[in-house]
């Protein structure tokens, strides 16, 4: 039944098989995750941040758990552009899924240098500009909170990206995310991804010190999902919809229903982050769950779902099967074994 459902999406100039990405920083360079899931089944893959030079990252402890979230201050630890090209790109080139490289840096020139060097690589479909990392002293969030800097860095990266898709990743740690989104789009961003983590702190009450060596970190996971849904909806309505800019929604997604919420809010696609740590195959389950949701709600094309918040439901959900006693199987009532209970 789900075979007839079209959940392919147009994302910038790309046509994706489905709307589910892995989120940068939570899926390595692809080889680590490949032991646990079939990456080629995804809509897109986003590498962890790449900087021009290798970065050691922050002093540990780098993570702390909260009741429904995870605090991290990794500090953009990565192998650097040269090693990425030599060691990881050959593996990435074997993937059939569109791959985005998340790009970070301390200066605009560094972002541009990374994008420019990778723009010629066929294995790469696009870039995600990380201007929203809260865990580094230079670059990261300091770019993402100033609309003028956002415009400048987006414009420079767009020129360097050639024909690749340029996506800009937004921080929620701003007064009005739509102002930043507008600056990015007007400077040439092909897509927006939101949200990155919130700056937060966990304190060890025995030592009265922050748990993280960096003192603060970015919080992710289920705790941020409702805020992320709100911000996706806000940016969709205020910036993206009228300009036809696709949004990659992320923040605490771990189930298909989470993903569907983001899509209804206005996301063309979604990215799964922290949940990969707990269940590295969850993206594939989410893809399957989205198909089932569409099938159960008479949605034959997922584009009809994007930004459908508050829109009148033309095709109501399929009526639930009656509770006990189950009807006998017939040509018109396929026997699914379901009791109709959600």
């Amino acid at each position, binding site marked *: 039944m789900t075979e007839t459902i079209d959940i392919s999406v147009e994302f910038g100039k790309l046509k994706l098989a489905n709307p589910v990405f892995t989120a940068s920083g939570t899926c390595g360079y692809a080889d*680590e995750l490949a*032991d646990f899931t079939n990456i080629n089944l995804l809509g897109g893959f986003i590498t962890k941040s790449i900087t021009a030079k290798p970065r050691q*990252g922050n002093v540990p*402890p*780098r*993570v702390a758990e909260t009741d429904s979230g995870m605090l991290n201050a*990794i500090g953009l630890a990565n192998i650097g552009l040269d090693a990425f090209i030599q060691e990881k790109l050959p593996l990435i080139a074997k993937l059939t899924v569109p791959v985005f490289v998340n790009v970070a840096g301390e200066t605009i020139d560094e972002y541009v240098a990374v994008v420019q060097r990778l723009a010629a690589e066929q294995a790469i479909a696009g870039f995600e500009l990380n201007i929203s990392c809260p865990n580094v002293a230079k670059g990261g969030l300091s770019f993402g909170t100033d609309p003028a800097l956002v415009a400048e860095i987006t414009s420079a990266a767009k020129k360097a990206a050639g024909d690749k898709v340029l996506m800009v990743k937004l921080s929620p740690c701003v007064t009005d995310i739509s102002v930043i989104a507008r600056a990015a789009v007007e400077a040439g961003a092909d897509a927006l991804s939101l949200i990155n983590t919130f700056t937060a702190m966990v304190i060890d009450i025995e030592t009265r010190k922050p748990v993280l060596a960096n003192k603060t970190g970015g919080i992710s996971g289920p705790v941020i999902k409702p805020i992320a849904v709100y911000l996706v909806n806000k940016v969709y309505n205020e910036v993206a919809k009228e300009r036809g800019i696709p949004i990659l929604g992320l923040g605490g997604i771990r189930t298909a229903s989470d993903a569907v919420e983001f899509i209804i809010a206005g996301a063309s696609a979604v990215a799964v982050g922290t949940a*990969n740590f707990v269940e590295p195959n969850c993206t594939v389950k989410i893809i399957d769950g989205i198909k089932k949701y569409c099938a159960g709600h008479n949605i034959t094309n997922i584009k009809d779902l994007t930004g459908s918040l508050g829109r009148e439901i033309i095709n109501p959900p399929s009526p639930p099967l009656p509770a006990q006693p189950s009807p006998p199987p017939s040509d018109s009532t396929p026997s699914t074994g379901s009791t109709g209970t959600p």
Partner: protein
Amino acid sequence: MTNESSGPDKGMFDAAVFANKHIKGKFYRLGLEFYGDGAAAFAKARPGQFAELDLAGIPLPPTDAIAEDLRDASERKILLRRPFSFCDVSSRKDKIRVEILYCALGPATLRMTSLSPGKSVSVIGPLGNGFQSPADKKTALLVSGGMGAGPLIHLAKTLAADYPKMGIIAFAGAKSKTELPFERPTDEISQQLGFALHEFARVGVESQLATDDGSAGYEGFVTDCFTKWLGRSSLAVKDTIIYSCGPEVMLARMAKIAEDKKIDCQISMERMMACGFGLCQSCAVKCKVNGSSETIYKLCCKDGPVFDSREVAFEL
């Protein structure tokens, strides 16, 4: 320590609980059974490797069964998996049994105590590199602190089976007798023969016990107990290897002892992990580059948890 069986080297599997034995105090021993691909993967598990258990959906034990000092922790929800090394891996027909020594210390391990035979738990593993083969060494000295005993019990069994001519001696320490993660010491005669702990004695490995307060065995740190023993021995250092697991301050001391005596030493490190297989980059261990003053971060989950003691740049 090799296994020729086919199937995946690691993965995410459902394991069936076959036992969850309360040892004493807050110490427990969980037994997990793997089938199919899970059995194929865990048949290759080496001592020092670990697995990530998803305990978020496991119910808490009844409130009156929760120790007073864990009541506050029991109110906490958990999100991430928890890493555990193995104290035993054995085969049983087409199944593989993995046993985990653990201590109920917080919201996740407290939930773990309520796992009962027949229940299922999601496991990712086996992960990490494990202890390396002793190759041509004639003596292996195993030194543990507290819960570090778990992987060394597994190592003792494996070494005894794979290297029957090798001399293997274990040294286990804890703050006090009540904090030793063992069922009970052996009888007096066995102790006089050098077999202080059942867990090592049953695989024919001698063991010595140390407690900081002297409530059992040697009075003092296990590192001091070990150093005194080493001073009395006439081992050829080139034929000897040390394996160690325990608190970081103890491992730093073991690394110094090994360096001073020029004995090869492998240590199992511990770090907070979010994933356990290299995605999150959270479990950084500062390591020396070719013995120089330059350092780099390696990942405890992928590059470790076992490191050559000369490699780690301790910051204590």
